[in-house]
Structure formats: C-alpha cells, structure tokens
C-alpha cells in the first residue's frame, strides 16, 4: 500500500483530509482512489482532461512525477506520494 500525504492547503476544502494508504500502481490510480475517499477532490488536483493542474505538484518519494498529462508514473507498494501546491501568487 502506498501512503498519500497532502498539502495543508487542501484541508481548507476537505477538513477531514489525512494521510491515507491506497493500493495503486500508478499516480492516476492514486488520484482515482482518493476521489472515492474524498468525493470531488480529483477536480482539485487535475482538470477535466485529467491533466495535473498547473500549480499542483505530485511527488513519489522525493521525485516529482514526470507525466503530468496522463499521470502514468509508477507507484510501488510502500512508496510515499505527496500532493503539494506550487509556490506562487500574492
């Protein structure tokens, strides 16, 4: 099971959000499973094409994912997935 961690910023919209374990082989499967636990959260992470939003980053362990379009990066069991917001704005 991969462990998924979230930026604190998402807790504004999902106050019950906490680190969870999911069984997934790719980042896309991680995001789909998150949406089952937290309905609608997928729309915060990706757009309607499934493309990672411009100012959102996903890391698998310490590596930023390479495929922001199809989220095909592989997730191994026991790996850590981090869903972060980019630093921007003012």
């Amino acid at each position, binding site marked *: 099971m991969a462990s998924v961690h979230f930026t604190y*910023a*998402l807790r504004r*919209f999902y106050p019950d959000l906490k680190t969870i374990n999911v069984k997934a082989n790719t980042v896309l499967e991680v995001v789909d499973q998150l949406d089952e636990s937290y309905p*609608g959260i997928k*729309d*915060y*992470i990706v*757009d*309607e*094409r499934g*493309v990672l*939003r411009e*100012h*959102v980053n996903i890391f698998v362990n310490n590596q930023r994912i390479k495929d922001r379009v199809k989220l095909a990066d592989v997730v191994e069991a026991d790996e850590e997935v981090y869903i972060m*917001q*980019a630093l*921007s*704005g003012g």
Partner: protein
Amino acid sequence: MMTKTLLVGTRKGLLVFEKSPSQGSWKVANDGFLGIPVCMVYVDEREDQWWVALDHGHWGMKLHRSVNRGQSWDEVEAPKYPEGTLIKEDVPASLHYIWAFAHGGKEYPGKLYIGTEPGGLFEMNGDGFILNESLWNQPSRTDQWFGGGRDYPGIHSIVVDPQNSDHIYVGISCAGVFETADRGANWQVRNDGLRADFLPDPHAEVGHDPHLLLASPTNPKVMWQQNHCGIFRSINGGARWQEVSDTDGPANFGFALAVDDQDENRAWVAPAVSDVTRVAVDQALCICRTDDAGQSWLTFREGLPQEHCYDIVYRHGLVASGNDVIFGTTTGNLFASENAGESWSPISHHLAMVYCLCFA
C-alpha cells in the same frame, strides 16, 4: 424602504454589504472565501439563490451556491468540457475561467447559463452542466475567435430576453455578439455596425470585442455594449449597432456598463485609457451617464479622486438600481451614488481588487 444588499467579488474573497434605512450607509454584513479570488457573483432572483465563481490559483475554477443569502455555501460541480472537445487542433479544451451567469427565465425553473473561457456556453438543467454544441461548433470559432487580454476567447455576457426565454444573446471577447431564437439550437452573428480597429478589416463579421453586453430590462430590443472600440447601442435587438461614444469627452473606451432598469435611454460607463496604460482618464476618476440614448454624455466627478488615480473598473464592476449606482475598482475602491451617479461617496478605500458586483 427595504434593506439593500450588495455582493462584492474581490481578489481576496467575497464581501456582502448591506444598507438599511436606519444606517444610511453601506456596511459589511458578511464575508466569505477569504483569500480566494471571487471572479463572478450572481443572484438568481427566481429562487433567491446566490452564486459565486472562484478562481483558485492552484485548484481550478470552482462554483458555490447559497440558498440562504450567504449564511452557508455548497460547492456545485463546475462545468466540464466534454472529452474530445478541442479549442483548436491538438489543444484540448478545459475550463479556464467563468465569466458570466444568467438564469434561464421563469419558464425554465432550475435552468442556468454559464459563460466560460475558452468560449463555451454551458447550460445547467437539474444536476449538471452541458456544453452548447451549436455555439461551440460555429465555423468561425477556431479561426476568428481569439482571446482579448486572456489566452482564449471568453463568454462574459449572457442576455436572456425577459419576454421570451428562448431568445438569448451572448457577448464574446473576442468574437462579438451572437443571438439565438431557439434556446441555443441555432446562432446568428450580430456584429453589424461594430468597429474592430485592432483587425485588418475593422468591419469583419466576427472578431469584435464587446467588453460587456446588456439589454434594457423594460425594452430588451434596446441593447448596449461597452466595446473595446467605443460605446454602441442597438434599437433592434442587435440587428444593427450604432456608435454612441462621446467624441469630445471621456465616454469612449472602458469595460463596465450599466443600463437603467426603467429607462432604455439611460446608461452609465466608467471610462479608462485604452490599450497602453489602462488607468483612469487623465488619472482622474469619473463616471459618465447618458439620458438621451447616447446622443450626449454627462461626466460626473464629485466625490471621486481627481489626481494620481490609477483605478479602472472591470466589466462586471458597475451596477445600477434606480438611483443607486455603485462601482468597484482595480485598486480596491468602492464608491456609491444615491443620485444616479451625479455625486459619490466612498464605501471603502481599502478592499482588494474588485472584480464584480451584484445587487441581491
């Protein structure tokens, strides 16, 4: 006299102002969405539902609705472009921005229209939003529509005929005005008489930039638009537009426009300097009003800053109801007039950038 309510969408959240007969001035009664850009506010007066569109920098466009006048809000799934929809070849369409709301008329309870960038008109029936394919598939869209100040074209104005809910106009920057008489099944271009000085052919059929399109509530055949290239008015439902800019005064370029709710010949604009600098004309803020269908314009400055002023008013940032006229600016000023714009008092000088206003 009843308490009046005003919704103000800013770069840092929503403010709800109220003015009661006993107070005499506008006071903040509520706020929400702190820190989040509220790019559009709308009141569906059929059921007194309030809507806001949120432009999250990180998390995408979101929609929220309140059925209790802002005491609580619920997120509603935002419009989504159908899979396979392309802005142009090899560019998949996705929701970039929400520019406009309009309810579908009293004959169609629950129907709501939303105008978006990159140029899609969505219709809500019951639970979800559906893209109007007929407008999206206009042959001109891929080659003659383009973004004005943004990456892609946007529908910022939706006018549903109060006398016939099947009869709808949209204003698109940049494309122009489109009309449907059959609730979106077929669309006609309505740009005759407009001028697009930024095109090789200023009288091209499509490619115009109506910054805001409105119709007179009492006589919707009379339409107004604050266009990039001046102020235009039509007396025949957009079949032909006539320029009514003030050639000698400031009423020319701008974004915002308000039309009197009783008098089809009265309208207000908030002039700005075009293209290069985008500041108040002569760095002095004014509001202009016509009472004679644009034949002449009155310029009002009393109570407004007249030097070193950089404010402009965005397209949804000016509203009028009777003699109450209010506008908000890009530098966070909010001004109110109780005498149809002739003099002004500040409601606040220290808001975040104001995007949009709506009486509630």
